[in-house]
């Protein structure tokens, strides 16, 4: 067996520091006052303004209309993240189910057609997508924010691969047991896919949580602002000699990091299981 040497620990510790330090600096800096940060730069020490900064970041009404609060933005980000994750899972599972189990003609072809869209980033089709949503009068709505991005090639691909690895006998046994296509999906396929669902959920939640360009384009109403846009807008208030609220921007950044981190920590066992092994 390999015996761990001090040097190994050193490398690991350095690696940890490299990953963690920026987050710590962001958190520490957020507890100082804006003026202090402006004059002294980033901080590594505790600034004693933790409570007031975070309270104001979450509750202070800001933006041009002075209506939107940090809490509201947090909520919007959650709606976007969870909406994306759930919607994508439902859609891509159903798509993969059809592709794998219903042997219609051109199934493989249609799968690859879907899959090649993976190669096209959102930005390529962002203008036509905007046009469609605008014509449907869905600008400034959660539907408009979420629905156009729901079709997921990644999710469909993962579920397709997973379904293909499910032994055919399971389907046959279910058929003999009198389970139709719907029952088989609900009773058998859904439960055995749950680790896979957990993994996709995390990936898609983070994807939705981190959306920036699309929400910025789709929404002009500040009531739909997400955290990502909030951070940006705080730093945009250069009016006269006013100092931007650096502390609040950092606080929001820290808040923005927390939910995905917690999600990963909570689901990490399932996440790893879902990506590496299958429970069949």
């Amino acid at each position, binding site marked *: 067996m390999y015996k761990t040497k001090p040097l190994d620990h050193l490398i690991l510790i350095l690696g940890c520091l490299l990953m963690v330090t920026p987050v710590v600096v962001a958190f520490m800096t957020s507890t100082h006052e804006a003026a202090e940060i402006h004059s002294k730069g980033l901080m590594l020490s505790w600034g004693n303004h933790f409570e007031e900064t975070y309270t104001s970041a979450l509750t202070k009404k800001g933006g041009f209309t002075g209506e939107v609060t940090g809490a509201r933005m947090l909520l919007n980000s959650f709606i976007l993240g969870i909406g994306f994750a759930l919607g994508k899972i439902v859609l891509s599972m159903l798509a993969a189910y059809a592709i794998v189990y219903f042997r219609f003609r051109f199934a493989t072809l249609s799968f690859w057609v879907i899959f090649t869209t993976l190669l096209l980033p959102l930005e390529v089709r962002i203008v036509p997508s905007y046009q469609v949503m605008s014509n449907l009068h869905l600008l400034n709505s959660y539907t408009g924010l979420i629905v156009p991005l729901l079709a997921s090639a990644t999710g469909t691909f993962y579920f397709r691969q997973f379904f293909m690895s499910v*032994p055919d*006998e*399971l389907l*046959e*046994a*279910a*058929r*003999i*047991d*009198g*389970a139709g296509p719907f*029952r088989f999906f609900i*009773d*058998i396929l859904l*439960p*055995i896919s749950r680790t896979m669902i957990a993994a996709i959920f995390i990936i898609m939640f983070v994807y939705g949580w981190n959306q920036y360009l699309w929400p910025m384009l789709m929404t002009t109403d500040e009531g739909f602002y997400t955290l990502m846009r909030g951070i940006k807008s705080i730093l945009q208030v250069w009016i006269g000699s006013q100092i931007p609220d650096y502390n609040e921007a950092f606080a929001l950044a820290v808040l923005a990091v927390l939910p995905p981190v917690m999600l990963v920590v909570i689901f990490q066992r399932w996440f790893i299981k879902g990506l590496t092994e299958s*429970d*069949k």
Partner: protein
Amino acid sequence: MARIEINQVSKVYSNGLTAVNSVSVDVADGEFIVLVGPSGCGKSTLLRMVAGLEDISKGEVKIGEKVVNKTDPADRDIAMVFQNYALYPHMTVYDNLAYGLKNRGTPKAEIASRVAEAARMLELEPYLERKPRALSGGQRQRVAMGRAIVRKPAAFLFDEPLSNLDAKLRVSMRGEIRKLQRRLGTTSIYVTHDQLEAMTLADRLVVLNAGGIEQIGSPLDIYHKPASTFVAGFIGSPAMNLLNATRGDGNWKVGDQTIAAAVANGEATATIGMRAEDLTIAAPGAGGFTMKLDYLEELGAQRLLHGMVDGQPLVVATALEDDFNGEINLAIDPKDVHYFAAATGKRIQHVAASS
């Protein structure tokens, strides 16, 4: 419980490949039929057509009095046991057993009593709350059997159910399946490539080769009167010795050695078959023919002597524990010699002179 009629059933795949070619088998009520053959002979395809998991290209399958060609598997009143068990991994043993009944809208109380009965029969009672993952191979196999039993179907279909078990477990499970089938009296069709399993389980055997039936009969019938060289070589362990023989001086000869006397007229060449256990070791010079010994396999109760007769391999089973070396003198009762047409491999009668 029902009779199953398989009437000139064929399976032709869309690429033109014929997997099963006009097969007819009539399975009597309560009978245990074993389909046996090498891999790729179409035995599983035939079973899957009876189950409804595979479309029937030609012919018809009747279960009971009903033609089921277009019937959904769930409505054919059959239960199937798969090679890899196909248990639902996320359900407990109880739910696995109950699932088929639940889907048919069986009342809860009846499900409970039927599952309890099957669990008792298969000694699964302590494991009802476990997931299949936490069971051994033999236990999983029993759950798969249980899933078939609780349904009380007209017929059981077994698709190589014992192939994934180790040798010892296979023997005991084989016994259990036989006992269970006797007790329940359910018509069964069982697919295997293992001739020993086939011999021990079957009321009647169906030997399949390349999509067609080679022979149907009771295990002993097939053992004693194989209809072709294929059956002769497939059923029985060790396989029957098959030697090319020619007619000379009124005898059947292999090389220049006489094996048995022949009738006056008939083919000039034939394939002769001799069971390893029908050959006896004779004293040197006592007539018969000689085999050059290659090597010896020790089986405990008996030993197998492998050798050559005129360059053709031959196996002899004997209980003698002598030291064998070099040449061995062999004899066989002429009535134990089987004859097959050299060209077609089909069994021929009356080529040996009665002695």
